[in-house]
């Protein structure tokens, strides 16, 4: 059984997942000894570039795959040895819709309740409790295919609330929603966290969403690059960034790398420079390289910048690797 008083909701230790590969493909390590623990009641956002292992982790957490090695415990209960106990506490919202669009909203909800072994009377009671979290009242007898994208997402959320999970897993739940719908969905999640004390684990590429979380994890190559509150993470970059938009960032970077002490990164047509004396640098740049530069700006570091900083192409290291 799971422990309702435990302080950490999810503990992941040395988790590895390796895709076997085929004749032409070498095996690929999607998760490479991942360690992660999420306190109870926290709003955790997991982000990372495509192919970083987010989806694999999600698949393992919701029971669609078993890891190569490592352990996961949900509320103190080993998810791999006894998956049923852990799953009772979990509500999973998938990236792709998990409702039968030929059935009505109510019919979908009822199937979900039966899967969690709820009786009809308990289902009706839970439905009364879960519906106010959405704008679905009055649409219960409509088929799911007639709902708008935003309402369909709400239906997914109400559905998983029916069995009163204490841990919500969401895989890019706001993908495909318009900004209004996204904002509303996020607010609902935050309210759920505050009022019901639900632990939330969500994957997302949208940094506006990550800024509102308690804890942000950045995943790359199956390992955690960073795990901290959004505030602390932004501060980690510390100083301002000079962002130069130009045609040939590589050339400009070479010109800049002569006076040392500057950290330089290239991201598409952008050159990002950090270090002392940015103002002076700007002056020089405009004097000598005005023709190559489209725009110049100095910005305060945000979470997105840290993400790019941590996962993006690092010029210094690339050069180091090339010279070897």
């Amino acid at each position, binding site marked *: 059984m799971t422990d309702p008083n435990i302080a950490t909701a999810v503990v992941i230790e040395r988790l*590895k*997942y*390796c*895709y*076997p*590969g085929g004749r032409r493909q070498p*095996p690929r*390590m*999607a*998760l490479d000894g991942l360690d992660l623990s999420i306190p109870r009641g926290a709003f955790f956002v997991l982000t990372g570039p495509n192919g970083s292992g987010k989806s694999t982790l999600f698949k393992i957490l*919701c*029971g*669609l*795959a*078993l*890891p*190569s*090695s490592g352990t996961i415990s949900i509320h103190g209960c080993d998810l791999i040895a006894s*998956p*049923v*106990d852990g*799953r*009772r506490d*979990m509500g*999973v919202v*998938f990236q*792709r*819709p*998990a*409702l*039968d669009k*030929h*059935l009505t909203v109510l*019919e*979908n909800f*009822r*199937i*979900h309740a*039966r*899967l*969690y*072994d709820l009786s009809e009377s308990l289902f009706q009671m839970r439905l009364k409790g879960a519906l106010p979290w959405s704008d679905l009242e009055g649409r219960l007898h409509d088929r799911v295919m007639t709902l708008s994208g935003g309402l369909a997402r709400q239906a997914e959320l109400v*559905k998983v609330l029916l069995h009163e999970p204490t841990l919500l897993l969401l895989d890019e739940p706001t993908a495909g929603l318009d900004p209004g719908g996204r904002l509303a969905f996020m607010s609902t999640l935050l309210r759920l966290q505050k009022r019901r004390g639900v632990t939330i684990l969500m994957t997302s590429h949208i940094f506006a969403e990550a800024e509102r979380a308690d804890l942000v994890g950045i995943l790359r190559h199956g390992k955690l690059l960073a795990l901290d509150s959004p505030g602390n993470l932004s501060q980690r970059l510390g100083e301002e960034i000079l962002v130069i938009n130009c045609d040939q960032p590589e050339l400009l970077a070479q010109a800049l790398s002569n006076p040392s002490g500057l950290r330089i990164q290239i991201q598409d047509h952008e050159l990002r420079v950090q270090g002392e004396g940015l103002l002076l640098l700007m002056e020089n740049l405009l004097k000598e390289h005005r023709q190559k530069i489209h725009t110049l700006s100095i910005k305060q570091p945000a979470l997105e910048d840290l993400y790019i900083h941590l996962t993006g192409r690092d010029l210094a290291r690339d050069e180091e690797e090339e010279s070897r």
Partner: protein
Amino acid sequence: MIRPTLALSRRELVRFFRQPERVIGSLAQPLLIWAFLGAGFTPSFRAPGMEQLSYAEYFYPGVLLMLMLFSGIFSTITLIEDRAQGLMQGVLASPAPRMAIVFGKVLGGIAIAMLQAAPLLIAIPFIGLSVSLGSLFWMLFGALVACLGFTAVGFLIAWNMESTSGFHAIMSIFLMPMWMLSGALFPIEHAPGWLWALMIVNPVTHALTLIRTPLYHAPGQFLADPNYWMAIMIAILWALGCLMLALWRVNRVERGAFISA
């Protein structure tokens, strides 16, 4: 186990009735095939030893079997899309036993197939046959075993299949021939040797025997025949064997490759 299974099989029924074209199609298709092939082949059908038999009558149990085949295909083909994006994701993440997915499909499939069989059963007197209630029971029993077998085979194929077009390919080279070589279209007795061998090892042939025999004999007669019991054994072994395989398959969760050191 029971609640999830019933909920999932109920879903199959609701989905069936909510698509009127599917209801009409699944009812009309066997009737049309029966009527057209029956009328077309009857003048030239002279199987030695069954001269007094019209083709429409000969083909009748085969059409019933075809209905079971299509029911199995239709109820399992939805799995393919359902797993990647659809209700099945939620089922897999729930504490409900995965076996409920198989049982839900099988129960729902059987219920739909039996509903579809009703118009065909009503047609029995029109081909000049009279069937006792006891015989009708054994005929339905044969149909049920066939339906169970086809649904389980369909499940095995559809589970882990990436696209519905792949399913169609397997269906036309594997499932349809199982039906064609069951004695549904032509009698096994006069088939060339190699075909006869294929037909005799085809478990569906024996399921068809279960449907055909009660049309002409009283239960007291055929239940005393060891050949009939042999057919029961083979058909049930096939259906239950495939069901076991499907249950085993659905319980297997994809696992990461083993890493040394």
